């Protein structure tokens, strides 16, 4: 039944793609959540202030950085 093995490989690829996308979406949602709390204190304006924009940019980068550092630390502890 060779058609099912073709489907299986394609299906695997589809699954992997979807997993990737799900991880990205999850990270974006987390970053949005975290950086909202960090950077939008006080009242909300009709646009972001300059300091808020800077904060959001830094926040996202630092959080990502920490995320990757944590993964690396975890890996090196396991060896």
């Amino acid at each position, binding site marked *: 039944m060779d058609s099912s093995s073709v489907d299986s490989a394609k299906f695997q690829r589809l699954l992997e793609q979807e997993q990737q996308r799900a991880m990205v979406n999850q990270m*974006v*949602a987390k970053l*949005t959540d975290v950086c909202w709390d960090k950077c939008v204190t006080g009242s909300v304006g009709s646009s*972001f202030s300059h300091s808020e924009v800077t904060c*959001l940019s830094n926040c*996202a980068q630092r959080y990502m950085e920490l995320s990757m550092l944590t993964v690396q630390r975890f890996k090196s502890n396991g060896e």
Partner: protein
Amino acid sequence: MDGSSLDSAELQRFLEQEKQKAMFSEMVGKLTSVCWDKCISGSPGSKFSSSESTCLNNCAQRYLEMSQLILRRFQSM
């Protein structure tokens, strides 16, 4: 089995639609929660005050804006 139930294009479309629905649902829930906390301090009235309405409007827009900014930054990495 003619394979029509496993049609890849149809499945793709269906998956995509369901994803969109799920993401939309999640965002609505998130916005409600975040902006409630942000804008409704003290005890709720019998309707939203003018300042509460403004705050809620701003809040939802800013949160969505931020979400899109972060997504774009992510994609450019």
